[in-house]
């Protein structure tokens, strides 16, 4: 009963109005300072951290996927290049073969041409020589004949036949 003696005992469910005022001001101050200066940065930091962790994971995944894709791409490209190289090699081989045959054919043709030209010129030469010889032989024959005639005109008839025969022989030999 000591306290009761000091004053009326306060009912615990009745608020002291000064405390209501102080509590409101103090709590308002607390809210104002923390909500203005601390909490926004807290949320930002929270988001930044979540972003850093999840974003980092996501970025790593993306990088991995990209790397895989690049690897696939390079592999495909390599295979493509290989088949292309093989094709080029085959083409080159085929080309070389065709060039070779072409050159051979040309050479053969050329040699044939040269041979026929040679033959022709030989024939012409022979013809010319025969013609010259014939003229020369005729001259020689006449020369010979006049010399024979000069020595013996008695056997003229006989010798006439001889010259004829000789020329004919010559002609047939030239034709041959």
């Amino acid at each position, binding site marked *: 009963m000591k306290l009761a003696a000091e004053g009326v*005992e306060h009912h615990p469910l009745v608020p002291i109005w000064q405390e209501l005022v102080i509590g409101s001001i103090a*709590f308002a101050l*607390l809210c104002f300072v923390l909500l203005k200066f601390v909490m926004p940065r807290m949320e930002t*930091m929270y988001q930044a951290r979540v972003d850093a962790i999840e974003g980092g994971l996501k970025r790593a995944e993306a990088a991995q996927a990209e790397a895989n894709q690049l690897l696939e791409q390079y592999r495909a490209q390599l295979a493509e290049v290989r088949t292309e190289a093989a094709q080029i090699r085959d083409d080159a081989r085929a080309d070389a073969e065709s060039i070779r045959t072409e050159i051979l054919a040309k050479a053969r043709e050329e040699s044939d041409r040269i041979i026929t030209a040679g033959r022709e010129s030989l024939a012409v030469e022979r013809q010319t020589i025969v013609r010259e010889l014939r003229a020369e032989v005729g001259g020689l024959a006449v020369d010979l004949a006049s010399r024979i005639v000069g020595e013996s005109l008695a056997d003229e008839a006989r010798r006439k036949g001889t010259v004829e025969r000789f020329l004919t022989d010559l002609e047939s030999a030239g034709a041959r």
Partner: protein
Amino acid sequence: MSGQLVAAEGLPWPPRVGDFYPPDLAGPWVTKFTLMVWLAVGILIIFFMVAYRNPKLVPSKGQWVAESIYGLVRDNIAREQMGKDGIKFAPYFTVLFCFIALTNLFGITPGLQISPNSHIAFPIVLALVSFVLYIYAGVRKHGLGQYLKQSLILPGVPWPMHILLIPIEFLQTFIVRPFTLAVRLFANMFAGHLILLVFTVGGFVMLASDSLFIQVSSVAAFLMAILMAFFEVLVSLLQAYVFVILSANYIGSSLADEH
């Protein structure tokens, strides 16, 4: 036995309501309770300002503690109770949670030994803020008429029932909610302090008795006092958590599209 206990002169025995109202230090504005509230406000402002003066992605210890509290309130209370909308309320809930938890813990802090929340004025202030907040949130989202309709009229009920239901719903939403919010916190802190008084003062009273048996038995009272002090830590944090979770729930139900 009661005769022996009364013999303990100078000890305030048995504990009474008067124990909660120590004499003013300097008028009704400067009392132990108002000073404790200012102390709590100062501690929280300094702690958060220091912990967050230079926040980094990889936090320092203080920053980590501050962020853990924030993360707990943000994810386990605000988002749990209110979904995505709750996140913008998380800063206020964090401040509320810290303030209640700290002022509750004053109840077992040596030198202070009593929680400001055992004076109903402070829980009333906090409950009123939540009250205003959930009505404001509801009115802002739905408009006054729609909000009242949503909170008072249950859908799918035959109309004569509304004669009964509307007053009940009104009582529930606009009177019982803030009242219970304030009284729950106040009563827990009041009772907690009373229990600690019973065991500690009671222990000293027993120690001062003439009987050796009662003197030895006081050990049990002191052990209980220690046990109850730990229990009070749990109650302090739990009541802060409950207060915030209910506030979040009320605001969430104001924002919800259906009853």
